[in-house]
């Protein structure tokens, strides 16, 4: 029993220790900022994982959800002067609205049609933000978004933000892994694999699809909320289709339907430009080639490779044990 718990919690504890020690060991502010960005993206990827990774509904509109979250909190704080924590309420409300707004079409539309709907959503959001300059200041973006403060402690430095984001990530990771392993997660996977069979077994497809979309949109908006407090600035040119595609890449490169896969993907994709910097001008092409190779040869992502490797080793060890007997 005790051994089992130790076995299960070994990986998360090691990861947490590494994450806590990271800013203490690495003093370079730039790398800490990259980790902050990847944690913000990770929140959105957790959300995407529920729709696309588990329920199998293609969503290419995460950038739109992210933008709505970021702009909602930015506007409430700069125009109405709300506090960052208070503005979390409209942000989450926005997430629920988007979740239902996208969830209902997904009941009728599938595959590429849903993908096009979500792309259209992103473009509408971006174009409206650009055109409605009296409210959103158009292409200039919203500046001077206040920092978050916790009981009077203002989060100013990158390191402070890092720990703040880390706390959020730990909480969300626990919640998401409970959902994935729980009843909802199992039904979601069933809906992805075979919706007819799932509904025959008594799963309510309508509720589960809506649930997946609402969770995803809330997480996407939350990521937007975190984003605009990290950069203190939002601008519509950030939220293009490229960003949505990046989220999908993060999810599928690491491995869909898996917390560690999402973490690996979010970290890898944000770090990759740094690692590929040695290639200079060619790094974008090499990045694209890497992703194409993954899409063609390894659709399950890196975690599927690791899983396959572990299974292979287990079988081999067992055979060896039998042979020695």
């Amino acid at each position, binding site marked *: 029993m005790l051994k089992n718990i130790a076995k299960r919690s070994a990986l998360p504890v090691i990861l947490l220790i590494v994450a806590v020690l990271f800013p203490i060991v690495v003093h370079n502010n730039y790398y800490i900022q990259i980790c902050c960005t990847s944690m913000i993206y990770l929140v959105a990827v957790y959300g995407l994982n529920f729709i696309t990774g588990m329920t199998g509904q293609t969503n290419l509109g995460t950038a739109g959800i992210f933008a709505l979250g970021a702009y909602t909190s930015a506007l409430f704080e700069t125009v109405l002067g709300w506090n960052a924590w208070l503005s979390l309420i409209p942000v989450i409300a926005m997430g629920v609205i988007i979740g239902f707004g996208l969830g209902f079409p997904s009941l*009728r539309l599938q595959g590429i*049609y849903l993908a096009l709907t979500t*792309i259209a959503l992103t473009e*509408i959001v971006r174009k*409206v933000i650009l*055109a409605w300059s009296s409210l959103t200041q158009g292409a200039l973006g919203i500046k001077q978004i206040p920092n978050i403060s916790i009981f009077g402690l203002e989060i100013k430095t990158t390191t402070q933000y890092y720990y703040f984001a880390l706390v959020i990530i730990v909480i969300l990771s626990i919640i998401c892994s409970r959902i994935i392993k729980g009843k909802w997660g199992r039904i979601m996977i069933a809906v992805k694999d075979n919706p007819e069979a799932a509904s025959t077994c008594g799963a309510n497809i309508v509720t589960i699809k809506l649930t997946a979309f609402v969770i995803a949109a809330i997480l996407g908006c939350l990521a937007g909320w975190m984003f605009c407090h990290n950069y203190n600035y939002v601008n519509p040119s950030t939220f293009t289709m490229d960003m949505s595609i990046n989220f999908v890449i993060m999810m599928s490169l690491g491995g869909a339907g898996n917390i560690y896969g999402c973490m690996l993907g979010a970290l890898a994709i944000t770090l990759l430009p740094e690692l590929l910097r040695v290639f200079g001008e060619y790094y974008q092409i090499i990045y*694209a080639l890497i992703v*194409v190779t993954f899409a063609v040869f390894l*659709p399950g992502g890196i975690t599927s490779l690791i899983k396959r490797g572990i299974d292979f080793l287990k079988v081999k060890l067992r055979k060896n044990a039998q042979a020695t007997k």
Partner: protein
Amino acid sequence: MISTATLVQAIVSGIAMGLIYSLVGIEYTLIWNTTGMLNFAHGKVITFCGYLFGALCLKQMGLPLVWSLILALVLAAILALLMSSSIFIPLRTKDNLCCILATVMAGKILYEAMRLIWGAFNVGIDNYFPGTINIFGATLPATYIYVLAIAFVMVVALQIFLNKTKIGKGMKCVSQNKNAASLMGINVTRYMRIATILSFVVCCFLSILLIPLITLSKEMAEMIALKGFAAGIVGGFGLIPGCTVGGVILGVVENLACIVIPSGYKDVVAFVLLIGFLLIKPSGILGKKAK
């Protein structure tokens, strides 16, 4: 009150833009019908063909228009062969998400190739459709009339080609039933290659029509490529005549809406139409039954 001149101007330029959306629709529908993959790289393909034609042939090699066109078409066909055998054919049976990622990233590779070969700046090209034209008191750049004429001829020619020739009929068979087609002795992958080549040739023509309308830049076809999807949805997804009708409707509605609403919201119209049609009539105007 809106004058007739504004209205005529809006409608003529709307039809011209609409025919361009139709061609975009036809171009990706050819690949969608044969391979079942949506080519998200098509905007980049159009731009790449534009660079091949404008920057490489016209500007750097100094060829006359016709020869530039021919050379650009040949190069586009080679690109089509490369892309079909590396992406469309191997991935056609794979998961939806993988297809999307692969085509988007292929577009990214094309984009970066353009940046590396032709530099980060826009390429200025003299307008090869010069002059203005007067219709019902409305003054229009002659470019629109040329675009209208060429696009119209192309749309009609493509319809005839797809419905009357053996290759066109073969593509139709492949799009209707791949198994039955291969049992009837049709080489399915060969037709996929042909469809890709045809699609890229249309892209090449599209870029040539676009260069005088919008300057040659690396982002020139982004919006048009996305609106091409809207054209397909409005007319009927996967139907070549549907794309034509949808594109023209989209172009005209967009321009007429611009008279009423602020022009900043012009691009929103197409996407609202896309979502509206998908929710109310997913099969589109010409589609018979919902898929």
